């Protein structure tokens, strides 16, 4: 790249990034303001009376508001569900993408069709099922039901479809069975997709606030979204506390994303195809 093109390039990138980052920066700044200053008109940018009061509220865990515990629950639930989805969805997606069997298209169609059913309809029946299984107020209720979503299967099936078949064919010729082809050829080739699905699944679970309302009861079982909700009064929004909570909640997700991006997605080399 020539010098001027390089500069123009970075200018565009940085300019666009500012649009993205500005609201987030404002969020972070608000976390360090007092409630009064956060709603001042005209709005201030930097905190005039900086305070860590909002974070203090978050961390002064009483028995009613064990914030660290919520954080841990969220982490376990999101990681658990992401892992479960990766395992079951990849196997199912592989079968649907590469194998032949009776009723395959019908099955795939049915699975995808359920994506179109608004999730609200599924809440009450799932609540009754989860109750029956004895999972209410436990992590199981947070991990298992959501893993059945058709999203992961649809997502991976499309990715598997787009893989060139030569490597699989080569492996078969060398005597590999389905499971070996799956684990030694397909999965390694699919790291970008798997990592992406892991991040997306993690995030979906991490930010879910509707399902936990129904299945969680005691404060110790809460995840972050319902938990942070009860730190808010009923009638007015405490902006610094909301923003501080969001800041804390976003750290693991961003970390996960950056790790996945750097070490998994970008680490995949395409050299496999040359052999």
């Amino acid at each position, binding site marked *: 790249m020539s010098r001027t093109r390089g500069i123009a390039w970075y200018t565009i990138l940085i300019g666009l990034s500012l649009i993205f980052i500005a609201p987030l920066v404002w969020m972070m700044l608000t976390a360090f303001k*007092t*409630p*009064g200053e956060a*709603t*001042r*008109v005209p709005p201030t940018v930097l905190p005039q009376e900086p305070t860590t009061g909002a974070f203090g509220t978050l961390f002064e865990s009483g028995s*009613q508001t064990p914030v660290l515990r919520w954080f841990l629950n969220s982490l376990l639930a999101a990681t658990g569900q992401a892992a479960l989805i990766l395992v079951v969805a990849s196997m199912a997606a592989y079968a649907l993408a590469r194998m032949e069997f009776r009723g395959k298209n019908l099955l795939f169609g049915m699975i995808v069709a359920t994506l179109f059913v608004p999730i609200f309809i599924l809440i*009450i*029946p799932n*609540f*009754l*099922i989860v*109750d*029956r299984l*004895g*999972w*209410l*107020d*436990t992590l199981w209720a947070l991990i298992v039901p959501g893993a059945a979503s058709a999203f992961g299967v649809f997502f991976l099936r499309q990715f598997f479809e787009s893989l060139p078949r030569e490597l699989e064919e080569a492996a078969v010729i060398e005597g590999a069975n389905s499971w070996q082809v799956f684990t030694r050829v397909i999965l390694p080739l699919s790291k970008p997709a798997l990592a992406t699905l892991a991040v997306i699944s993690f995030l979906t679970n991490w930010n879910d606030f509707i399902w936990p*309302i*129904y299945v969680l*009861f*005691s*404060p*110790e079982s809460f995840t972050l979204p*319902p938990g942070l*909700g*009860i*730190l*808010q*009064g*009923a*009638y*007015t*929004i*405490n902006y610094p506390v909301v923003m501080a909570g969001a800041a804390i909640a976003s750290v693991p997700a961003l970390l996960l994303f950056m790790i996945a991006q750097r070490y998994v997605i970008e680490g995949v080399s395409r050299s496999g195809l040359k052999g």
Partner: protein
Amino acid sequence: MNLHISRRGLLGIGAAGGAATLLGACGDSGPNEKVTGGGQNAAPAATAYTGPNVALAFWNGFTGGDGAFMKKLVDQFNTEHQNIKVTMNVYQWADYYQKVPAAVSTGNGPDLGIMHVDSLATNAARGVILPLDDLAKSLNLDEAQFSPPVWQAGTYNNQRYGIPLDVHPLGLFYNKSAMEKAGLDPEKPPTNNDEYMSALDKLKSAGIQGSWATPFNFTGSMWFQSLLWQFGGDLFDEGAKTAKFGEDPGVQALTWYVDLVKKGYSPKNVAQDADVVALRNGKNALNWNGIWTINTLREDKNLKWGAAAVPQIGTQQAVWAGSHQFVQFKQRQKDDNKLTAGKVFMNWISQKSLEWAKGGQVPARKDVRESAEFKALPEQSALAQQIDYVHYPPSVPGIGDAMNTVVTAVNEAVLLRKEPGKALSDATAKANQILEQNRKKYGG
């Protein structure tokens, strides 16, 4: 019911309590069946509980600052009562109203709770909460100890379902600095229409839009309802068979409210919460808002503000109010010890509701209201003066669905998308349809 039970415990209870089939059929009793619980035993007046140790689950929506006040009371109760342990769980109100029925239906519900008075009928009709007539009788509670409107509002189908804890009405909150700037006396907020309009004129000359009109439920719709009653109208007729808010008093009320915008006393397009934020910043001077605003305004140490009864704009005094009520929840199995202990708890908290009032409430109980300590709380007692003319929506199941049409009408009118008369008549048509739908669903 102890919620910290293991999975095995849950399965055990499920088996013992009778199997509910997986898909539905959870409601094995409806509003008309004799419900277990609610103190059918003619036990002696329950000011003391002498049975075996018992644990009670108490759920409510007192999140944030409110929660701290109630928690303090609960802790004190637990200390003073060796054989009763009350655990309090809080959830956001919107979540609470979805969660509690679901929990009760699967036998995981709490023993006691708080509900808003306008949710009692719906929950009673759906068999979520139990009648409390016997409890009220055994505690010698009646209308004289509360106030007529709040006591009457806690019934459905001629049975009592709620014991009032507090009343939270609208009040007039005013920014004293803004008033001074306009040459008004900050200690004398307006009390009638003439004073109100002249105050607004003065504020306008000083460059302040004195009374922001919000188009949203909090608190635009409540403001409108207060005006509706003040002009002599009502939301629905007796038994809520038809909607009456679209008749003349309603049109008058909504026109007055929308005129605030049209005459420039309020900016257009006021967004949710913007009116309170503006009040805190001196851009708004006179705001009709709920008693909960006390806590919000207290956060600003530099703000000079006051609270008073809402002015009488119409022909009579009236004001919107909500009320938190104690309720008891249906259980799979009747446990007399828990019911009695629950009575003791409710009675105790009710008597100590002064502590609760400090969090920004008006106690429902008359003797607490008239105590010297309560009168020493300036803002709360100012709003408490309205206690005899507060209004509640009718105690009819599903009334909230119909009220949504009012919220929409106010929204459309204040945002100047429809004339008040048209907005209200459109809403009336929809509300009547909904009322009929509800009658079919809930019976009666």
